[in-house]
């Protein structure tokens, strides 16, 4: 599903939050977050997806109802939430 390299803690944080989501919403949510995160990395001309790329993607693509869950996971893995 990934087409780019991800910083390992950022990918771990995403896995952590996605596996907490209900299984029936996961696949679609994961695809949308990955596409948006990689799009954000490309937009800043980077070959590696980093924390801010995922944070911005989560803000846009994660349903509001599970956003806090996702951001908590990012914090747990040391990703700064601006």
């Amino acid at each position, binding site marked *: 599903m990934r087409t780019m390299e991800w910083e390992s803690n950022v990918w771990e944080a995403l896995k*952590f939050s996605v*596996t907490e989501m209900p299984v029936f919403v996961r696949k679609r949510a*994961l695809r949308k977050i990955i596409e948006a995160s990689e799009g954000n990395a490309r937009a800043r001309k980077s070959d590696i997806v980093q924390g801010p790329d995922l944070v911005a993607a989560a803000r846009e693509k994660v349903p509001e109802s599970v956003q*806090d869950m996702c951001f*908590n996971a990012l914090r747990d893995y040391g990703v700064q939430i601006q």
Partner: protein
Amino acid sequence: MQNRYGSPVLVSFGITRECDLKCPHCYSDSGERDSNELSTDEAKQVIDEVADLGAKVIILDGGEPTLREDLVELVAHANDSGVKPVMGSNGMSLTEDLITRLLSAGCGGIAISLDGADPQTHDNFRGLEGAWERTVEGAKNCAKLGMPFQIAPLMYRDNWMQLEDIVKKAKNLGANAVEVFDYVQAGRGRGRSEYELGTNERKQIIDQIIRWQSEGDIIYRVVALPQYWVQVEREVPEDEMLEKYTRSCCAAGTRFITILPNGDVIPCMVLQVKLGNVREDSLKDIWYDSPILETLRNRDLLKGRCGRCKYRISCAGARCKAFEKTGDMMAEDPTCWLPDEVVLAE
């Protein structure tokens, strides 16, 4: 604001200590109703605070929540407040009439405790002859009326070998999930080590659940046994893990918080460290400002093997077991069997 820890996902609200069973392990030491129990108005205020905190789901449990006369009123209040109400119950009072009223009030599902594949095992542990039959009847009523339900067995020394049969029973009854609890020596179970599983039993349970989840016709969740998730991360291909498996790390105070019938707030029903009381403190203040929760959330403060473990975020050890064993909620999980070469960071 942005750097503040986000809302809990789940809040467990024990609305009564009253229970019609006499389980020797009961983490909430339930039995008689507490004279200091929150009133209907107070309970509604708590529900409002839970909704205001941004939690997505409130679990009304106990004790046995169906013994509280205002249960349906509280379910409706939660639903109207925007937090999805679900319940944890022994299932014995789930009549068609009550389930119909709970559905109308917006109840999203019920976790039903079933500790045996046969009446004898369940009734012996639960302390009431005929309990199994009534619990199974309650589950059948849920299935008949379209109330989503899961079967929640507690695994202990005398029933762990029945897990496969309990799962079969759950599927036959129409459950949409099985939530397996590992026995924790808390509440009335404190000091009752004779019920606790050993490493081999825990490993076998985890191996079975990983295999069954891969086959995938029902959702499995595991509580108080976070090593399950380490095993999933190590053994299950990443794509399959992301698609099918539900994470089970210690969520006490990070995704989850518990309110007791007298208003006391603790990180989790089995991590019984008092954080405050909703009669004196706002739930929001407790969630965001409790120094105990701040410590609990900082996985870098974990001690012993848990502190050096490379899975310390995704597993975190069972904080309840560490606390019950040592009095220190950040101590290493005393039941972790994973070898150093697997878990210790280089």
